[in-house]
């Protein structure tokens, strides 16, 4: 099996790997690099549990062949500062936690791009992150709080 060398930036640090061209970014993160924060929920790009940032955009890492990130900037949930997570804890945005890292990645990205709300709703932007526990209110409430939209009505 011939390998391919992949040099990229991961969570701000340079990484160089020799790997199987068939390897998915999700598997590289979880099994090769031990960064198990990113989760596999479906393997088909439906659930978003595997969401990471690729050059600043949220993508499903289960659909990214790792060799394609050569020269690119990848960020996973391990890079998220815990101080940003207050609203998510307070508003019940997580229950079982399996969808949570993916939710956090997408939600914080929305929070960092408030201009998107001129054309999109939060619910539309979060629709690629499936959650089976919360019913989504806790998540949407947390995004609203993070955007400074105030406390939601009880």
């Amino acid at each position: 099996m011939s390998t391919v060398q992949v040099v990229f930036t991961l969570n701000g640090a340079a990484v160089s790997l020799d790997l199987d061209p068939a390897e998915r970014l999700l598997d590289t993160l979880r099994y090769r690099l031990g960064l198990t924060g990113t989760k596999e929920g479906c393997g088909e790009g439906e659930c978003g549990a595997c969401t990471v940032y690729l050059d600043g955009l949220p993508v499903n890492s289960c659909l990214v062949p790792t060799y394609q990130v050569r020269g690119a900037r990848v960020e996973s949930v391990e890079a998220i500062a815990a101080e940003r997570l207050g609203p998510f804890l307070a508003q019940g945005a997580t229950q079982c936690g399996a969808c949570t890292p993916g939710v956090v990645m997408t939600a914080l990205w929305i929070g960092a791009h408030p201009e998107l709300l001129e054309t999109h709703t939060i619910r539309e932007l979060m629709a690629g992150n499936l959650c089976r526990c919360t019913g989504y209110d806790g998540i949407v409430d947390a995004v609203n709080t993070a955007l400074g939209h105030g406390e939601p009505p009880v």
Partner: protein
Amino acid sequence: MQRREGLAKLTGRERYVDDLPLENFLWGMTVRSPAPRGRITAVRFGKDVDWSEFVIVDHRDIPGPNEILLIERDQPVLAASHVRHVHEAVLLVAHTSREMARRAAQAVEIVVVPEPAALDFRVAPRPEQIQYGADNVLKRLKIEKGDVERALAHAPVVVEGAYETGAQEHVYLETQGMIAWLEEDVLVVKGSMQCPYYVLNALQHALRRDERRVRVIQAPTGGGFGGKEEYPSTIALHAALLALKARRPVKLVYDRSEDMAATTKRHPALVRHRTGLTEDGRLLAQDIEVILDGGAYVTLSPVVLSRGIIHAAGPYACDHVRIAGRAMFSNAVPFGAFRGFGAPQTLFACERHMDVIARTLRMDPVELRRKNLIRDGQRTATGQVIQDGTDRVAVLERALALSTFEEKRRAHTAFNAAQRSKRRGIGLATFYHGAGFTGGGEVHLNSRLRVAGLPDGRIEVLSANIEMGQGTLTVFTQIAAERLGVTPDDVVIGEPDTARVPNSGPTVASRTTMVVGHLIERAVDDLRTRVGLDDRARGSVVKDAIAHWYAAHPGGRLVGEAVYEAPPGISWDEQRYQGDAYGAFAWAAYVAEVEVDLRTCATRVIDFVAVQEVGKVINPTLARGQVQGGVVQGVGWALMEECKFKDGAMVNNQLTNYLIPTSDDVPPIRVAFVENPYPHGAQGAKGLGELPIDGPAPAILNAVAAATGTEPRAIPLTPERLMDLTR
């Protein structure tokens, strides 16, 4: 109190079974039956694989009985000579490379000579399809009160209806998985599960190991909803068998497609009602038939049937009731526990039927509920006297007020007249859910829990009940801390490890807070007495006393304990299926507002109000989250979650084709609680976890009926089905 493990989950630091570091291990894969029924005549190993690299396990490797211990012993760990459903496990393979294990599993051919399969549970089986008992009935149960035939014969109005509910797949975001390894002579199994002691018992039984040689540990679990109640015993046994043969750790984690296809789902149901009433809508007689599809093995079908029939007549007063239920064998992948456990199915039928009755009588569905909701002093179908002081009509009124029900109904009339292709409607459901195990079940479980003092004065709760998102860790901490007057930081919740914790029962049946939480309170009290204090002692006084005890007893262990005691005055007759089915019922009224697009017949829920009386709300954020999550699961079950079966196995086993609601498919779920403390539940709480999934489906379909003037009777009410009804 905020979710105790919340930050760990939000930062991705919480480790589920597939995240745990593991050295020198093998990946396990399962080889499954291609046929719904037949005799295995050959197992062919493909020529392009070097099989010497693999660990291979079949039924001959099972040290003890080839049985998965549950209610009955009909389900084998691995199929030996016969198969009874597609995807039944036949063989296990393991390899250091996951890809190689996959290739190997795909290279094994199970050759089955087919036999006649029973694939429609609604139809009486032909002789050649009989595979259980004399008639393929896994379980029969009946509830009788009064004289239903006579009451029906004399009733001025009789309304009949038949209702169907489909299977539902759990879609916990973390798929099933287990790791098994040997520590010296002790087999250790760790993984995603709701019931460590169920798994322990199953391992002991099939592997012929006593409790000193098996240990089960629950890893953080990414959702369960009942799907990880009984199935984990199967996957634990598979991982264990591979590990025992390989003498190396084995990890077995299912892909999503395999998980959806091969594990349990909610029992499909067919429910028939024949209801006698007065002209002005008072219930006189309820004759109900409940038929469940149990699939190819018994699993928990008798208990699902039990809960289903007990709830089938709804939260109403009626003197003459007959509920006959049966769970059928079929060659489908076995059905199993799923949040609600039979009640969502029968309550759907009951609440849809109430609206059908209302329309038949030209009566307001709200008024029909008001008239018949059970009042204190009246009896349920099993003859249980309800006397809890909850004003159930007030719960209904609160839901009507919050949803502005009347105002919206009027507005919809105008809207629908003016709109070409959209129709709006509003519908309600009033319902209930009994918490804890039915009848004598909690006594039979005989749950035991301990709270240990620690040398530094903190305490540790030792329970087998697990966290799967519903908030166990947080609520247990709150209960223990408040009972002792200490802070949450002074409370440790012990890992559910059968080597360290007693059997406090499974994490199911909405019992964890109410029943097990109460055991915590009593164990804390017991701990206090063991340091010579009474229950007026709180806070640092107790902590100091614990620390002093340890200083005075080096090598000792200070443990408070509690064993389950049934609340006084409860009695249940298992033979006649009468009496007090549950210590407490939670009561609810839900309202759904929908908009239907007549062009596509797609239904959107545009507003949802959920009001429930649950004794006491211990943690508002967690309780609200349970309701919102359960409601959205109910919305999915009602409108879009359809399991498509071929030969009894799910063929749309991908998230692309089995649709669960996204954030964009549901409105904000508006939640309100009514409190009426239950004296025998922790801090007055009643069970809450399952109640919320009982109400949405009938409320939504009642709203669609109001919007479109049709009478849908089956879920999921997909656009295709609604189009058939509206043509």
